[in-house]
């Protein structure tokens, strides 16, 4: 029996992510217990961790640091124990070195890059809101069965620019290239919301549950 921890640090919509992960666990056929928690001890003990996130880069970062020991537990999980971690939306953005939303805020630096405003040259409405077609750049195990042209749901004004092109897994076009998913070693993140992206999202979550980097 493995444990999957969905971190609840007060940022946004937990029920959708929780339910989608429950379905992913069922589909994986694996014996998993899903827990929703902000306890550093439980997160340290979990076999996999999901970091959701809605809102501001800075606020989410502060909320996570506001739970004593939480970020240390996560870093331990990632770097020492090599456990799979999934970040969603701002939960993904926090993996960067730096966020540029309302000034500069340092991120966790797990995947090199900066989180910048979406290009506005094309005059498209911001936030980038709705369903966009994925352009899959790699053959990452978490993306098995997900193809270019599948749709995912986005709602964001900032996106990550990866310093290493090889960390970019999926992008979309919105007046330019927008980062849609990143991955490096045991860390994976999606700018889109797999929990709101129907079959494509459930497939990604199921792949991630089964993923053993």
């Amino acid at each position: 029996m493995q444990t999957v921890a969905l971190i609840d640090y007060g940022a946004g919509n937990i029920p959708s992510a929780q339910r989608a992960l429950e379905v992913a666990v069922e589909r994986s056929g694996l014996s998993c217990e899903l827990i929703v928690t902000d306890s550093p001890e439980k997160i340290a003990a979990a076999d996999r961790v999901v970091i959701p996130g809605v809102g501001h880069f800075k606020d989410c970062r502060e909320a996570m640091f506001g739970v004593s020991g939480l970020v240390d537990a996560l870093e331990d999980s990632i770097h020492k124990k090599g456990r799979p971690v999934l970040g969603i939306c701002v939960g993904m953005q926090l993996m960067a070195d730096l966020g540029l939303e309302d000034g500069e805020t340092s991120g966790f630096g797990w995947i090199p890059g900066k989180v910048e405003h979406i290009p506005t040259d094309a005059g498209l409405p911001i936030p980038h809101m709705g369903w966009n077609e994925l352009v899959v750049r790699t053959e990452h195990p978490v993306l098995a069965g997900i193809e270019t042209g599948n749709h995912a749901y986005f709602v964001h004004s900032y996106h990550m620019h990866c310093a290493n092109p090889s960390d970019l897994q999926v992008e979309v076009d919105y007046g330019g290239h927008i980062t849609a998913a990143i991955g490096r070693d045991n860390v994976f993140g999606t700018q889109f919301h797999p929990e709101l992206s129907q079959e494509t999202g459930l497939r990604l979550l199921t792949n991630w549950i089964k993923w053993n980097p």
Partner: protein
Amino acid sequence: MLKTRIIPCLDVKDGRTVKGVNFVDLRDAGDPVALAKAYSEQGADEICFLDISASEEGRGTMLDVVNKTARNCFTPLTVGGGVRSPDNVIALLRAGADKVGINSAAVADPDLIARCAARVGRQCVVVAIDARRTGDGKWEVFTHGGKRGTGIDAIEYAELACAKGAGEILLTSMDKDGTKSGYDIELTRSVASRVTIPVIASGGAGTIPHLIEGIQETGATAVLAASIFHFGEIAIEDAKREMQAAGIPMRIEEN
């Protein structure tokens, strides 16, 4: 490429779906959770719930409905109606809403938009505007379910809402709502051309060509409709296919 969204809207009162013609004559169209799930399966790009309960009890029931919906369909859910404070917004998000609509309370106090955006991020804050034409190229903001005039110019208010931190505008024409004679194209175009955030056209859709012109002639990035979907007059799949054939990029998954 980003796809144009079709958003069925369910008016919910005390946990049941209703839809009025011009916001008055209520008809029961069923269980909101089941309807949301059905729409999600038909290809709805988002679902919108408008809580028109008058009582605290009704609002408590709404949190339940939102929670059940979030757990039953993996489609983005916007919930509005009676939202007065950042705490109301957070309660709805925690229950499972993905975005929250603010209407009358934001008209009374536009800084509420900024306070909500600061707490939950602007992408979660949908400012709903009910507008009624008052003259040539002029519309007035109405509140309280479209009953109360405010004297506020709708275009200027949309710009203010955008500046205060709205993530999206849900723009309903009170003149058109329930008439099935098409969206107020001029209103929608006027607002969409003056704000930098997405605009949802609402009020008046009766046919698929209305949905098409609601996008092609306005700059809106989503169309919202209620009764045409609830009573099976138009299937969402058919609407999406026809809109795509008209040259609008739609999300149509090949299964």
